[in-house]
């Protein structure tokens, strides 16, 4: 039962990403051609909404639903892993036209070929786990 609220949040996420077409290969391609504001607008408004929300949480020291103080961890400082990992991710993002969220959403929507993208993503995650200690972080 505790999981129902997460299923509901995921459900809304799946609908909004599909209806905004952020899951569409075409929208990602269009974004990287700088030929539409649509995707940039989505990301900007999402970040702005999140930023205001997080500032309010911090200012008023809000608690989460179980009464614990909300603490959003800082990311570890580094440059190599973020830039290099980011570039590798970006190459895949523009090739397959989807990031991890949309991969699942598209499979749910019935695009069976996206299962190949998921298998690739699992393989890539596994490879990272294998090579982790040999990579610069």
């Amino acid at each position: 039962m505790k999981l129902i609220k997460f299923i509901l949040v995921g459900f809304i996420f799946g609908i909004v990403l599909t209806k905004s077409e952020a899951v569409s290969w075409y929208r990602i391609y269009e974004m990287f051609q700088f030929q539409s504001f649509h995707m940039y607008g989505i990301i900007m408004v999402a970040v702005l909404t999140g930023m205001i929300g997080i500032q309010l949480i911090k200012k008023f020291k809000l608690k989460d639903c179980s009464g614990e103080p909300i603490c959003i961890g800082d990311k570890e400082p580094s440059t190599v892993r973020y830039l290099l990992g980011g570039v590798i991710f970006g190459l895949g993002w523009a090739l397959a036209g989807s990031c991890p969220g949309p991969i699942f959403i598209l499979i749910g929507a019935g695009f069976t070929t996206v299962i190949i993208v998921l298998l690739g993503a699992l393989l890539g995650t596994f490879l990272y786990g294998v090579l982790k200690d040999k990579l610069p972080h």
Partner: protein
Amino acid sequence: MELIYHTWPWYISGFIIGLVMLSLIYFGKTFGMSSNLRTLCSLAGAGKKVSFFNWNWKSQRWNLAVVAGAMLGGFVATHYMSDPSNVSINPKTIEKLQTINIDAPEGKLMPDALFSTQVFQSPKGMFILLIGGLLIGFGSRYAGGCTSGHAITGLSNLQLPSLKAVIGFFIGGLIMAHFILPLIL
């Protein structure tokens, strides 16, 4: 009511995505979809061989519930909330796509050239999708997050590392869209 069948505007979509992230924070979690890939690897038993997958992945069940909901949402939105006006991208983009042999959207979310079931008969087509996935999986774990964890959550929380990652995302994406895609398609 008819508006829900059309493409949702960026300001409404972005706002709801921001709320999705904030509601997960309110539930005591953080928004991050690529973590599920690690969880699925662990679920499949990768932890026996590689220590990176030997972790408390059962604490991530809530995130798999988000995935299940997202899949259901994708199903409902494409089957019951779509109309032919969807995915009307810039005509210039469509022209550009023709030069690399990608069909125009005409209401479809995904191009047939890359995602129709005929791809299952094309080794090259399957290879492209597999490599795309591999880069996504490897890159997001290396960078410690994807679009949801870095671009949305990290930037909202004013994290410099996330800004570096997002700059990386765009460098990689631009290289792929402008230099590599035209070569391989």
